[in-house]
């Protein structure tokens, strides 16, 4: 339930000055780590997240080998200093669940059949967290997979929408996530038009559910353009440099 703070004013402006359907600033950078086969760094609002990919590589322990495809491993982890109160570095149940849904969101995009008997590892490290860190992590991780030269059917891009009162809003930040009335992270494969991650909490009327879901897809497609530009910069734009994309005026 909403707290005492007013998350959205009478003119429909949110605490950080955004309209209901605007994104926070997003900055993407591809190929930023030396050792990793692929990597990407994302800043999304106050989120600062690094994703790195190793592989295809030998599978250890060997009993986990899949004879017909690659094993995709994924770990989403939050640094102890990434949140207000120090977080225990051991993986929490929340992180284990998020690692699972991120893996499931990415694995349908990776052509795992091209790499039998190998492992592909995706490490997502949240250095500073704001709302929507799992979708930011997915957005960066799919760029890191592409940077590693892993065959993919499509990129995966995520965006979270939700509710403040009965108002559907895009891209919740930390305060809106905690004090708002619902959060709906969605990840899509934009060219294939498929949803690879969907989680919902909060109380949505059927109408608001559809509105938030469709808004998340629309925003995801917008972020996909930023992913494309970041990849273009990485491979055709000389030195890796950050690509800042301003949101098109609504």
């Amino acid at each position, binding site marked *: 339930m909403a707290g005492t703070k007013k998350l959205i004013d009478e003119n429909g402006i949110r605490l950080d000055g955004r309209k209901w359907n605007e994104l926070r600033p997003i900055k993407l950078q591809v190929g930023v780590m030396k050792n990793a086969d692929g990597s990407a760094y994302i800043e999304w609002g106050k989120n600062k997240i690094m994703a790195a990919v190793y592989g295809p590589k030998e599978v250890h322990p060997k009993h986990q080998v899949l004879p017909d495809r690659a094993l995709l491993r994924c770990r989403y982890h939050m640094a102890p200093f990434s949140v207000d109160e120090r977080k225990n570095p051991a993986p929490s149940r929340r992180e284990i669940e998020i690692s699972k849904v991120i893996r499931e969101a990415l694995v349908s995009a990776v052509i795992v059949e091209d790499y039998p008997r190998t492992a592909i590892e995706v490490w997502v490290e949240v250095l500073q967290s704001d709302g929507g860190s799992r979708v930011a992590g997915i957005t960066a991780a799919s760029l890191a997979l592409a940077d590693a030269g892993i065959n993919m059917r499509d990129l995966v891009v995520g965006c979270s929408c939700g509710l403040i009162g009965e108002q559907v809003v895009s891209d919740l930040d930390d305060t809106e996530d905690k004090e708002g009335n619902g959060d709906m992270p969605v990840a899509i494969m934009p060219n294939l038009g498929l949803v690879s991650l969907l989680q919902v*909490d909060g109380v949505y009327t059927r109408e608001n559910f559809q509105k938030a879901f469709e808004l998340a897809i629309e925003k995801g497609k917008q972020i996909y353009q930023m992913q494309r530009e970041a990849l273009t910069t990485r491979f055709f734009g000389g030195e890796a440099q950050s690509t800042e994309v301003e949101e098109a005026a609504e």
Partner: protein
Amino acid sequence: MMKKNHVVESITKERMVQLLASGKRLDGRALDQPRNLNIETGVIPKANGSARVTLGNTLVLAGVKIATGIPFPDTPDKGILMVNAEILPMSSPYAEAGPPSEDAIELARVTDRGIRESEMVDMTKLGLIPGKSVIAVFVDCNIMNVDGNLFDATSYAVVSALRTAKMNRYVVKDDKAVATDELIPVPVERTPVSVTIARIGDKLVVDPNSEEEASMDMRITITTDDYGNICASQKGEASTISPEQVLQAADTSISVGKAIRAKILEATS
């Protein structure tokens, strides 16, 4: 869940997909028909509330234990609710003893989310001394036999156990919370109902059994409340779903959930 090693089930997928094309399932159910649901409450008298739920051959036992606790700093005047689930090693040849698996953690968290987000229990009525003492409600679920769709069976068990749970009424004396002998119900406001739908090929089926789970491409669990609102959802498994099928699944969850809610209310009133 626990689909690995189901070699035989994987071989049956082809036939399953053929049958589904003509609107039929291997066990004869309609695509939107859940299995037989049986709810028995009060099975563990030492618990504050309990329910034994069978959904087909899936068997879940939920027990409620209520105690006083220290509130979380951000909600000093609200009670504590925790839902947990454990897949017992006895539940299936594929289950193992040891720390909870990823599947078990997901199951517990998704079940908890459905109960919490629907605001089933009025947490403001569980406060005792602001910032110091509140009522803590723990619901633990034992998964005893696995035959698919643990998400729904567990959720129905939790809802049934909570709806029939009794707790001591507490009074505050000298800045201390003291239990009286009077037993009162847990302040339950809503009846969240979880409906899990599997995609096998391009068809959506409600309440997949183990055999269907072994063949499913994608799973989505959607929880609705008494007013047809959607209050929690989780997509699972390695494949995807189209936006149209998400909305179709939402409508199915609302309509199927309504019938299941009536059954739960009947068994727990």
